[in-house]
């Protein structure tokens, strides 16, 4: 029986042991992880069980010894501080006393003691985090700052001086690193140098003098107010720079405006022929060009009295220079005088028209004819009326009427019609005129008069009796100078004209240098006869070269010759009429068979800017009327009526029939 019990017990024990493996070994060694005091009055110790221990089977006990005592105490409180902890309250806590603490893990098979830990409560103090962290934004517009304030942790008795805490706070911008500030024992701190508009996170912690840092307090977010970074000095800088920029813009505009104004309002107007299409001219379509000029209302010339058609042109070199082509007695021409213009518009005070306005004067001068010419050549002085072109300012040709001339003897009147500006005059003998029957030498001479202002001496183109019937002299040379407002120097362009269809006779050219031009100062009129003067020589103003020389070339039947080399026989010496825009309508007399009218139109106001610069005004755009084929008097009949702008010619055309078409000057009624 006893043996059975014994074996049963043994069996049970074996069974017992066999079932539970953990029961075989004592528990692992626990470990005291930390002992901390929050207030230097109480403290807590925590331990960690061994890894291999089964928590359910193992119990833990904490034992401690106090300094200089052999009494073993056990933990008074296992619960307050949680699991695996021991809490020592005030009664059980002695400061400045070494505690020797041990934890024992016990299971069914044994116990295991941890490593002892000796602590002095005075040196294991880790307080709670500071409380009531508040941030206040202070400051004015000049600067804002944060005032961070907090309170000591609730359990740490700093009021009695038992614990002395020091504080530390940190602030962080979004995306930046923490910035730590040591605050010492004070419970308030100012943070400056804020970034306006930035959001800051702020935390604070504390520590006793000899102890451990507490945990960081909960974050307080605060946003710095938006402050205008611009102080008063910044505004001053901004105002200064904007004023600078404004001045710069104004200056630039000023500079630019100058050129723009220069462009828009060229100082020197060139002669304008209304209806003159520059583009057509460039295109080389002289027909179209002259068609475009189209003088409406110009009655066709039907063998008019060429004397009546003599047009006296006075070239004015003034700013509003106009050439007045004063018709002698042509009623038509007279009618064509610009309304409003006193027939006798002798020398304007501004234009300086002078004696040339008088017919008589011209008569005298022109009547000299060759003598005059020759004299003039020597004299280097011309009084003829030349129709020229002025460059630069607005100069227009005025064409008065036909080149009615002194035949009537009272041409002065007409001649003075319109305003004659000081202008060198150029005569381009009209072939037709020359060939007209109506012209006799005397008349041709008369017809070949040029209205000149006293200022300008204009080479006269006078028909030579010896030459073709027209007997017009061809102007040998004209030197034109570009006329500008400031100066009234006209230099006639050099041109060569030669005898046209006429024979080889050449007439001396009278190149009168406009030395007498008071206004035109530097008009140089080379008085050398270049080519024999022909009776009728029609000159076409080819172009104006660089020296502002009006290059005339004798007109031939050829058209559209624009090159400087005189060639061909384009006669543009017919003035077809005046257009409304004060353009001289020149008729280009081609061959007898064909006549083209080239009319010059007054240059419109929109004088291109480049004209001044190029001084090529004349060449491209002005045509003298093509010289009529000698012997042919197409004259007025050839005025292309299509010119719409030949308004000034009221009534009769101002065709210088076959007469002299100086470089056409359209009358300037309005100028």
């Amino acid at each position, binding site marked *: 029986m006893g043996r059975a019990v014994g074996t049963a017990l043994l069996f049970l024990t074996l069974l017992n042991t066999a079932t539970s493996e953990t029961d075989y070994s004592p528990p692992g060694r626990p470990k005291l992880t930390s002992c901390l005091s929050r207030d230097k009055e109480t403290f807590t110790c925590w331990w960690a069980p061994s890894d291999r221990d089964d928590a359910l089977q193992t119990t833990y006990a904490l034992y401690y010894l106090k300094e*200089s005592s052999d009494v073993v105490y056990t933990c008074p409180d296992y619960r307050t501080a949680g699991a695996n902890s021991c809490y020592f309250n005030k009664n059980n806590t002695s400061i400045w006393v070494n505690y020797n603490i041990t934890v024992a893990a016990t299971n069914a098979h044994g116990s295991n003691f941890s490593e002892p830990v000796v602590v002095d409560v005075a040196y294991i103090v880790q307080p709670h985090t500071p409380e009531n962290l508040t941030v206040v934004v202070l400051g004015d517009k000049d600067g804002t700052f944060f005032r961070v304030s907090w309170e000591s942790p609730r359990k740490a008795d700093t009021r009695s*001086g038992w614990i002395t805490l020091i504080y530390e706070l940190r602030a962080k911008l979004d995306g930046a690193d923490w910035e730590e500030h040591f605050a010492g*024992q004070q419970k308030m701190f100012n943070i400056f140098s804020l970034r306006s508009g930035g959001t800051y996170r702020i935390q604070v912690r504390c520590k006793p003098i000899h102890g451990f840092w507490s945990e960081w307090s909960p974050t307080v977010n605060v946003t710095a107010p938006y402050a205008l970074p611009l102080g008063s000095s910044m505004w001053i800088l901004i105002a200064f720079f904007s004023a600078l920029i404004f001045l710069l813009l104004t200056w630039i505009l000023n500079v630019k405006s100058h050129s723009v104004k220069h462009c828009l309002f060229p100082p020197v107007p060139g002669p304008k022929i209304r209806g003159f299409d520059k583009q057509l001219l460039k295109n080389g379509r002289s027909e179209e060009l002259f068609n475009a000029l189209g003088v409406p209302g110009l009655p066709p010339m039907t063998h008019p009295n060429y004397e009546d058609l003599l047009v006296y042109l006075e070239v004015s070199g003034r700013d509003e220079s106009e050439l007045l082509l004063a018709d002698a007695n042509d009623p038509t021409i007279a009618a064509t005088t610009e309304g409003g213009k006193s027939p006798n518009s002798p020398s304007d005070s501004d234009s300086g028209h002078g004696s040339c306005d008088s017919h008589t004067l011209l008569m005298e001068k022109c009547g000299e004819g060759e003598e005059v010419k020759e004299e003039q050549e020597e004299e280097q002085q011309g009084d003829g009326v030349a129709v020229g072109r002025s460059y630069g300012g607005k100069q227009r040709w005025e064409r008065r009427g036909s080149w009615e001339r002194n035949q009537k003897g009272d041409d002065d009147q007409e001649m003075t019609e319109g305003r004659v500006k000081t202008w060198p005059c150029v005569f381009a003998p009209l072939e037709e005129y020359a060939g007209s029957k109506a012209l006799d030498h005397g008349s041709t001479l008369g017809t070949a008069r040029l209205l000149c202002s006293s200022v300008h001496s204009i080479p006269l183109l006078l028909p030579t009796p010896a030459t073709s019937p027209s007997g017009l002299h061809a102007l040998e040379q004209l030197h034109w100078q570009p006329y500008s407002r400031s100066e009234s120097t006209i230099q006639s362009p050099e041109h060569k004209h030669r005898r046209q269809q006429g024979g080889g006779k050449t007439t001396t050219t009278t190149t009168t240098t406009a030395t007498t031009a008071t206004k035109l100062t530097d008009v140089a009129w080379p008085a050398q006869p270049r080519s024999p003067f022909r009776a009728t020589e029609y000159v076409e103003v080819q172009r104006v070269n660089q020296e502002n020389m009006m290059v005339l070339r004798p007109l031939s039947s050829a058209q559209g010759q624009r090159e400087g080399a005189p060639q061909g026989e384009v006669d543009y010496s017919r003035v077809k009429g005046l257009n409304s825009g004060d353009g001289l309508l020149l008729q280009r007399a081609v061959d007898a068979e064909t006549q083209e009218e080239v009319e010059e139109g007054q240059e419109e106001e929109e004088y291109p800017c480049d004209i001044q610069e190029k001084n090529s005004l004349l060449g491209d755009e002005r045509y003298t009327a093509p010289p009529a084929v000698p012997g042919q008097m197409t004259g007025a009949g050839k005025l292309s009526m299509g010119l719409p702008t030949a308004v000034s010619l009221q009534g009769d055309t101002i065709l210088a029939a076959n007469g002299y078409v100086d470089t056409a000057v359209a009358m300037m009624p309005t100028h």
Partner: protein
Amino acid sequence: GWSFAWLGALCLVLRTPTDTVRAAPICDNGQASCQVLSLADLFDRVIQHSSRMHGMSNDLHSQFEQYFLPSRNHISNRVNRNCHTSGILTPNGKENAQRLAGEELTEVILKLLWAWRDPLWHFHQSMAHHDDFNSFSSNKALVMGDLVHELRTGVEKVAEKMQNLGIISNLVNGLRSPEQLLPSPVRPQWSLMNDYDLLFCLRRDSNKVQSYLKILKCRIVPENDC
């Protein structure tokens, strides 16, 4: 050098007749440039001294520990560490310290400070002989002695002022000979202590002094700093 200045000043002070209880400012004639320190200022000075003393003792202890005793457990597990000042009854908690009267607390402080006068001097002597101990610690030991001395005199001044102000009653021991404050055992225990224990005890006692002074100050002169 400072200690001698302090001693000189102390002699001057002590020469004044003690029957007349009055505040004995250093400057006698009430000169304008001379300011009488208030009790609060005295307390602040004394507390600063004690903080300095504690910090230095802490450094000494840790240095000694690192240099001589790398294995901490070997020493720190010694529970029975007999400081020669163990015989002085000191409050071991805040409430205990608050229960003490001002005079008693002041006496405890003074006892502690007196108790360390000789050991520190001897400690300095012994440090000087240890070649392996760095000179820095040796100097610190010397400075330590001066500090304790200064602190003691300061506390005595404070005590005197408090007595003059009637805040505390006359100290039991008064300003008698310091030898009376020493522990009763004739043979000083400190001679038996090794250096390390001495430093350990020094650190603790300086901590005590600092804490007691703070409690005393905040009780007698309450301010925002408390």
